[in-house]
């Protein structure tokens, strides 16, 4: 039994400046692609970091859930499931931690579908940013990934998909274990915070992001080591593995691929660091552009502030094609 990607979707319209709108748009598109209704989702996990107006409450996931129309009121609009949502924050690594958490819910039979979303946006959401928050390195976009099980808890096969293939018949398919690597010494490399010392009454419109000058170099080293460790532990041949990574700089993914001697998915036309959405975005692009042919598996690697990196192998349960 494993955790499988049922569908992915992205939201990249530059006219949209809200993290909630991006996450919700991607979520709705993802559910539509999967042919799964919002009511069927047991858990929605939002891994986005930078958010509209620097809100701290409620969980951004609740506002996204409302837009998606999932479990609006358990008493007023009864459905077969009571959906739960929450935020899981860990910078660019959050989405893969969310997959790890989703797998625990799916494995224990606590959920049939888990929807993981991510989005980042400048808190000003298009209004004139406060000067202190003008330098914002992150792309304004969102992504969603619907997860389900490759096999039922008692070996029960799931229904066949529209193409007639039996789904969920490969017990080795799905995500592998998540490997975590953390640099134990020194500066976190990057910090993102609301600076109360300068915000005055403009706290909803500003955010401070500070990157050390050697942040990206340290992140490259850490991510490379994390991927090597994951590949060794999982017994992967790296040249037969497509890399799906964070993209804190435009050439980050290519450099990781070069160091490891394999291909990494590169994203074009993204303005800024796609941050929390990056790995879903890159995977989605790989499927859409059919970059996966010739590879046995995908290796997801995310890295971010702390410095920490997480990586996991993904073996698709069927051909890596758009569903």
């Amino acid at each position, binding site marked *: 039994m494993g955790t499988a990607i049922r569908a992915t979707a992205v939201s990249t319209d530059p006219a949209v400046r809200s993290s909630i709108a991006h996450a919700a748009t991607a979520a709705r598109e993802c559910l539509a692609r999967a042919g799964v209704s919002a009511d069927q989702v047991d858990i929605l996990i939002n891994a986005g*970091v930078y958010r509209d*107006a*620097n809100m*701290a*409450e*409620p*969980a*951004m*996931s*609740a*506002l996204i*859930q*409302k837009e998606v129309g*999932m*479990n609006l*009121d*358990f*008493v*007023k609009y009864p459905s077969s499931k*009571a*959906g*739960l*949502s*929450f*935020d*899981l*924050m*860990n*910078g660019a*690594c*959050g989405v893969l931690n969310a997959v*790890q*958490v989703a*797998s*625990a*819910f799916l*494995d*224990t039979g*606590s959920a049939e579908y888990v929807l993981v979303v991510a989005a980042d946006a400048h808190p000003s959401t298009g209004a004139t940013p406060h000067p202190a928050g003008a330098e914002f390195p992150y792309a304004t976009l969102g992504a969603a990934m619907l997860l389900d099980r490759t096999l039922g808890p008692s070996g029960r096969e799931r229904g066949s998909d529209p193409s007639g293939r039996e789904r969920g018949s490969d017990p080795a398919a799905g995500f592998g274990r*998540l490997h*975590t690597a953390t640099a*134990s010494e020194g500066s*976190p490399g*990057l*910090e*993102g*915070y*609301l*600076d*109360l010392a300068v*915000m*005055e*009454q*403009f*706290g*909803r419109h500003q*955010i401070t992001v500070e990157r050390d000058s050697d942040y990206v170099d340290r992140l490259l080293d850490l991510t490379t080591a994390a991927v090597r460790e994951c590949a060794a532990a999982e017994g992967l041949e790296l040249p037969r593995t497509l890399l799906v990574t964070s993209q804190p700089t435009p050439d980050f993914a290519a450099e990781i691929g070069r160091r490891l001697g394999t291909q990494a998915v590169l994203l074009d036309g993204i303005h800024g660091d796609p941050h929390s959405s990056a790995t879903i975005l890159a995977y989605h692009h790989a499927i859409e552009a059919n970059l996966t042919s010739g590879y046995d598996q995908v290796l997801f690697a995310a890295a*971010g*502030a*702390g410095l920490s990196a997480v990586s996991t192998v993904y073996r698709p349960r069927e051909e890596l094609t758009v569903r």
Partner: protein
Amino acid sequence: MIHTRFESIGAYLPSTVTSTRELVSQMRNAPPFDLEDLTGIRNRRVHDTRPESYEDSFVLALRAAEDALARSRYSADQLDIVISASITRFRGPDRFYFEPSFALMLKESLGARAAIHFDVSNACAGMLTGVMVLDRMIKAGVVRNGLVVSGEQITAITDTAVREIEEPYDPQFGSMTVGDSAAAVILDESTSEADRIHYVEMMTCADYAHLCIGMPSDRSTGIALYTDNHQMHKEDRLMLWPTFQTELLSKMGSSFPEEQFDYVIHHQVGTRFIKKVSRFGAEIFQAPMPESLAVVEEYGNTSSTSHFVVLHEHLKTRPGGKFLLVPAASGVVTGCLSATVSSLEV
């Protein structure tokens, strides 16, 4: 089938006590009603603001985590995961953090070298959500044990409310009821029914996600919380928990009386709120409610830590038993955690 348990619990409450009367006397526009009478909250704890011993969300969380670890069989370096679940993310007097995660910073300070880390954020249901996540991760074999911790320097919203409240029905009145605190729990596998989390299930009814929003003020330098209290605590909302738990118990082939709870711990919004929620529970379950435990009179609403601050306080003087923890959080989030606690020390 693996079960989990609370292996250790820790809490920390700042030593400074501020009364509701003191707070009201600082308001520019004092309300025409008696806030203490309305909420039942006499006092709350407030973080230390002296530069040499400053207590922010991070320091508070660290104290509670250290407290839990002091009585745990696990040392920090044996923890498999650290989950931070606070709403407030203050580190230092001027910084509200979005990254790195608080869990990473806490893990490094505690020396939990081998631990996975991430933050879970779910308003006042944050710690219970963290416990639910950890429960499933232990059951799935992803981790063997873990720490869920939250440090809340939540009175930042009180400072803003004292400055800004103008109207008797101002949306910031809820901010006058909160208190600073921290709590931590360590979970691992249960081998005895005497110490076991029987179930933890929650839901978010997102139609009401906009009723309670915490964000920076647009009128002064501060973080504010804006609550539509009338809508938030409407009777329809209060039916969500007992309806949810009734369905859950019916699927499990049980009923509220059969569960034989010794105590119920509601979210500590105020004494009247707690009574009202229990009354709705009794009506919908058609069963008497167990003894309701509370610390709200002395500590106020401690936000994401509330259930565990109550449990910790209870265990100081009274025995364990079977507890029902009921979240009520912005989102809106509700649900139930059932646990038997026998050997937890405080």
